[in-house]
């Protein structure tokens, strides 16, 4: 019986793969952006799943966990915070990509990535 962390891990990777597959196979800019948000969610799931270190306690420094032993006994809170940061960055990038898609559409009346190949070679 796999534990929750492993299931989350598998789900996360599956999401990443689905996202990559989508981003590589769909020609429509919006669909590609959606695929990337899927992959991003997958990554966040993976981070949450991995960031947990078995056998340790929450990162609250109090009587049970004196500051001197903290390094060995608590979970470093940073990875959990990473997800938050990653989400924020993900939102930013997604917004930027959407803005790009809008402008690209204004230019050629098309959202097909194959339309934007003037630069090459």
């Amino acid at each position, binding site marked *: 019986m796999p534990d929750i962390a492993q299931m989350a891990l598998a789900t996360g990777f599956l999401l990443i793969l689905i996202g990559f597959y989508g981003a590589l196979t769909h020609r429509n800019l919006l669909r590609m952006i959606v695929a990337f948000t899927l992959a991003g969610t997958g990554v966040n799931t993976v981070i949450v799943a991995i960031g947990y270190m078995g056998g340790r306690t929450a990162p609250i420094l109090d009587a049970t966990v004196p500051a001197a032993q903290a390094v060995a006994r608590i979970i470093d809170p940073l990875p959990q915070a990473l997800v938050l940061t990653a989400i924020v*960055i993900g939102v930013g990038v997604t917004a930027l990509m959407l803005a790009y898609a809008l402008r690209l559409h204004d230019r050629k009346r098309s959202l097909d990535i194959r339309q934007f190949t*003037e630069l090459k070679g």
Partner: protein
Amino acid sequence: MTAVDSLFLHPILLLALGLGGAFLLGLLGDRARTAYGLTLGVLAWMVWIPARWLWAFVQEGAPPQEIFTAGTPPPFAINLRFGLEEAALALLVNLTGLFTALHLKDALLGQGRRAMAVLLVAVMALGGILLTRDLFNLFVFFELAVISTAGLVLLSRDERALGAGFKYLLVSQFISVLLLVGIIFAYHATGTLNIDGMAAANLGLTQGGSLAFFFIFLALVAELKPFPANGWALDIYESAHPGFSALFSAATGAAALYAVDKLLLVGGSAWLPLATGIGITTFVAANILALPQKNDRRLLGYSSIAQTGLVLAVLGQRDILGEATPFIAFGILVSHAVAKAGLFWLSGLVAGRQLTDWAALAKRPLLLFAFACFIALLAGLPPFPGFYAKWELAQVLAREGRLALLALVLLGALIEAGYLFRWFGYALKREAPATSPTCPAHKALPVLAALAAAWALAWLWGDLSAGLFGRSNLLLALPLLFALGFLLLDWLPAWVKNTLAIGGLVGFFLLTWDDYDPLRLIFALIFTLGGAITLLASYHAHGRRIGFYPATLLMFAGLVMLVQAQDAFHFFAAWELLTLGSYFLILRGKESEPHALSYMVFSLGGAFLILAGFALAAAGAGVPNLYLVDLVDLVEPIAPWVFLLLALGFMTKTAAIGLHIWLPGAHAEAETDVSPLVSGILLKAGLFGLFVLLMTLGPQTLYGVDLTHALLWVGALTALLGNLLAIFQEDAKRLLAYSSIGQMGYALFGLALMNHLGWLMALLFVINHFIYKSMLFLAVGGVAKRTGTREMYRMGGLIKLMPLSFIAVLIGIIAMSGVPPLSGFGGRWIFYNAIMDHDSRLPMVILFMAGPIAFLYLFRLIHTIFLGQLKDELRRVKEAPFWIVVPQMLFVVMLLVFAVVPGLALRQVDAYISTFFPTGALQWEGGLITSQYGYWNPVAIMIIVGVIFATLFAWLLFVNRRAQMVKQFNIVFSAERPYRPETTHFAWNFYAPYRKAMGFLTQPFVTRFWGTVTDLLHTAGDLGRRLYDGNGQHYAFHFLAFVVIVFFVGF
């Protein structure tokens, strides 16, 4: 307490200022000018901080700064480090940012404060990448850089930039997923995100950790735009605003490289080969792909990618480079960054996007000079940092036996130099548009700043190389300084500069003549006093002649430094300097663009062989600083390879057959007074190199082949084919050029005989060839100037109109053909004696055959130009300009004097050669010179020949006293108008019968061979670049394919 402890200089401000400035801009309202002023102010502050710290680190011995955010050490908080390397790179990044803001003035004012905020964030993010020691923080800064890059791409007016930005975002999404997954697994393996902590935990070595590291590593390497996962970057380079591209190339590249460097610390030495592999593949591939590029910015993009790859390859050699790593890596990196930023900014001044559109710069000498400096900087030529870095890199790679890598580095560098110098040729020689580019101050300033930085770095790296490796700062070399001084004096009229140049050459000789051994003295004489005499011809030029004197003096600086060089480093530096100077000189000719390029590529190829040869020799001798005399101690198996590499390198300069195709065009198309400089004088550099080589290494055997015997064959064939090709030329200067090839063949043959008289003969050729070839080139150049053509059949009968030129040519060809009484005969006499001492019959026979062929072209030269009928349109031709005739007459006197008293120059050398070959020396007694086979009495010969000539001449006059002069028009034509007039001229295709007999030997096999090589490279580049079809999805796929391939190949 030091001054840097001031709060205003705290390194955290590098981040805080950028962010704070960006926020402040948001509060400012729509006052674009104020916002722009604020942006510049913030950036200037961000420049000042690392600059001041750099000073503190270097001069005041300040320790590296550890900055703990949140007041806690890692792993619970992010820490930053600010040491020497970070300060240097931050200065580079922020300076680029500041000047980019300046260059982008119009675009930023047009877009308003939001764009300025994005620029500040971009610069801040790059600073963060440099400073942070936390892996996740690194990811955040990378994402910030990505977002701000995607924003700044839109500053371009080019609509295509939109597509490029989207493709970039597309690929960076894949990269960031890889990076994040890698980071979290790395954290899982080590329990920390701190880079140093991971390094301590040996992340790269643990089982799962190495896969995590692989992900992180490839994600960061992807930011370096490795081949083939770099199509997105090229599109950005091509379409973005050039001001931004400068930042993207110089600053982003530098920051990403430093990130990879930090990461390699975590991975440990096991990952170094992978870095080298990716780096060198990218370097070579990007350079090949750049070959067929026509768009300037895309070309710069390819070059950026290549240079970044090279630095990555160097970082991957950290295990053997050790302490030298920063010197080499930074040397290449700053060269690339400064040059690339400068070139992108320059491209903002050029209206068209084709490489040929850079001809617009032709009318702006300062910008053109900047262009030349940037290209020299990229090509790693002295005195710029890349040169020192290249030298040290080659030394270490050879010492550690990584020869394949060395070969690839040099191959890539040669290709890169090829397309860069081709581009420079376009800028200088292609037709400039009618309107020269407008050059507002805010766009000129960044270019000039980059130019200043280039020279400052040249000084710095010279200083470092002297301090760290015991080489020396080339910018302290007097000849080079003298040459560079002419850059500042270029506003003076040409005759003033000419006087200065001649004075400098003579003065330098007087200063140093005591330093030389007799052999070097001969070369030094030719390089200084010979140069001074030849330069007399340059008095005929009017105006300012911008660019001529710096180039000429640069060549002479290289030449005299070559003779003075005691160690391999200085020898090689001098070699590259003279190559660079002579390239600019040759390029001045009207039609010389392709020939100058071919000269440059062959010369640099030869120089790289020399570099490799010296590096190998230093490795073999086991010395850190190889002196030329150390070559004596080399033994098998290295010695023959060193011999081969050096000999090939030197023979590119002497234009031995197979490596000669650059010479005819380069010498023939050069200006009138340049041809003698590059023929009479410059070719001797190659012979000097061969002298040094044979004096020290002596005969060597490789796979049972006696290499000097091979040289003998090369010399003989060069003499034969050079002469043969010369007789079929219609162009008088080309004829002389091919004749030089033949003459160099003789000299090579003499050297390769490896006996006393052989060397003496080679030396005699050195002197003779200098005198008569300089004289002939001037004479023919003077005639060409007056007649307006170089094709001999268009001349004729000029003997009366140009009697002095006729005398010069007459004396010249008598001397060259080796008939008595002039010095050429002495050469022959020594030569016949020399081959008696040797038993290689077949090459000797070939060389004998070459002799009469020389008569043919010499006869053609004098006969066709000066004898026969005078052309109607040439009736009013005058004697050549006074100053072109003066040196010719001096040369005539020299030839005559040298013919009567050859001992003047040769006696000392004869004695000197005896230290190498004790037997076979000549006896010098009064006017009589005796060998073991006979004697030579120059004075007697002169008298005898004089008497015979006078008698015959008198007799001819007597029998012809009633002869009637036939004028041109008492011939009757048969009422036909020939379709091509020249075909009816007797002097056209003068030796048609010989062509029938021997023409098969003159087929351009060699030209075709090298043509095929370049074609293949171009084709490879053309095929390769089809990979980049413009589809962003395909680019993303390239990235994934890259990851998979590297996984299977390198992991």
